[in-house]
């Protein structure tokens, strides 16, 4: 099925349909992840691949026009490159351990310690969380910084200075649009608090089940997206201040980092959580809790920043220039 969708994306010319298909692709791969036991990953992929990135693509398409030119250039060369890569990979699979075999080296060397000892060492049932937030905490810190970088980058590329008359114009346009969406608005009003509640559940339940800071952040941001889409940018601006979001994003990163700094100041290695409490396992708990909170803060606020900048740009930008010019 994945292959089918992917092929369809090649042939499709209408960018809007492509973005929707890529949403399907995201959902499909997420289901695949569930079947492969990777529940945390499925969680993330569903909210990111099917949710956020599809939305961003849509907003981008509103600004760039939706059709692709039928120009085909040197597909032969491209095909050749692709086939070389592909056949190299197939060649590489030849000596791989079989799919699903328990004797594969990856199941023998590093992983067993995570599976067998993480309960004593960290005390969190979700192994993915304990590896993510403690054993490989620095990777995750890097991940938070990556998302922060993306937020700053989008801000640098797309931020617009809004003028008062623009806002009024958009307001009137939005109001005329939203009168039609009465049903949607009511349902959304019921759903949004629920979504936010659910985000908090995911945030704090991440130790025991699938979930964690990143997923929670995305879900929380999704609630705000929904609000923005239905009630208009300017209403959303009134509720959520842009510069406040930036501060929030920064403080998420800082919160994460400061946990590490605390362990430094206590003479332990960076991100050694055992200093946070007299009992090392409780310390790990606290560390993971704080770190996940930092991740959630940053992710939610960066997602909102990115979305606001895209959507704000799209509402401000003049209609696209005719393509024939």
């Amino acid at each position, binding site marked *: 099925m994945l292959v089918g969708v992917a092929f369809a994306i090649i042939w499709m010319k209408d960018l809007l349909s492509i973005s929707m298909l890529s949403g399907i692709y995201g959902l499909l791969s997420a289901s695949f992840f569930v079947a492969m036991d990777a529940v945390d990953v499925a969680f993330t992929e569903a909210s990111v691949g099917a949710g956020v990135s599809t939305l961003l693509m849509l907003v981008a398409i509103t600004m760039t026009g939706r059709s692709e030119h039928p120009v085909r250039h040197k597909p032969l060369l491209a095909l050749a490159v692709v086939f070389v890569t592909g056949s190299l990979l197939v060649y590489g699979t030849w000596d791989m351990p079989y799919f699903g075999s328990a004797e594969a080296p990856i199941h023998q060397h590093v992983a067993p310690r995570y599976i067998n000892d993480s309960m004593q060492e960290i005390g969190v049932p979700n192994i993915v969380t304990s590896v993510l937030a403690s054993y490989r905490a620095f990777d995750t810190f890097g991940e938070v910084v990556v998302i922060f970088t993306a937020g700053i980058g989008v801000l640098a590329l797309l931020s617009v200075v809004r003028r008062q008359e623009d806002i009024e114009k958009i307001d009137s346009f939005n109001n005329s649009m939203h009168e*039609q969406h009465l*049903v949607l608005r009511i*349902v959304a009003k019921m759903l949004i608090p629920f979504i936010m509640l659910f985000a908090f559940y995911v945030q704090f339940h991440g130790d025991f089940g699938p979930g964690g800071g990143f997923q929670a952040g995305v879900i929380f941001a999704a609630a705000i997206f929904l609000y923005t889409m239905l009630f208009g940018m300017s209403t959303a601006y009134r509720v959520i201040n842009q510069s406040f979001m930036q501060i929030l994003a920064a403080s998420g990163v800082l919160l994460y980092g400061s946990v590490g700094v605390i362990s430094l100041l206590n003479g332990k290695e960076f991100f050694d959580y055992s200093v946070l409490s007299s009992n090392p396992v409780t310390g790990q708990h606290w560390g993971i809790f704080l770190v996940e909170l930092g991740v959630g803060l940053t992710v939610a606020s960066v997602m909102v920043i990115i979305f606001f900048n895209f959507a704000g740009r799209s509402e401000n930008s003049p209609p696209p220039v005719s393509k024939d010019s």
Partner: protein
Amino acid sequence: METILEFSSSIFLLIGSFLCISGGVGILRFPDFYTRMHAVGVTETLATAMILIGLILHNPDFLVDIKLMIILLMTIFISPTASHALAKAAQHNKLMPKLDTDIKADNKKVTSSNP
């Protein structure tokens, strides 16, 4: 008791699957957007509800039941709303239902002049 639960859960699942399939056939075979939406919109809510109820009956765990119930509630809210919004948007953009007379006409007139 056990068997009754098991049995009824199976029945629900079966009905749900059947409805699903009929919805699927509908979306493939019906001639235009509105009829397709009819097929999907109607079956979807019921089928989902059936399957979820089947699963609830299947499972004794309380927490899982609660979660299933939440999903059920959400689908009951969400899917009619989505269908409603969809139909409204389609109509708003002057997508005409196909009538018998113009069934052969080209149905790609998505866009129109006035929003």
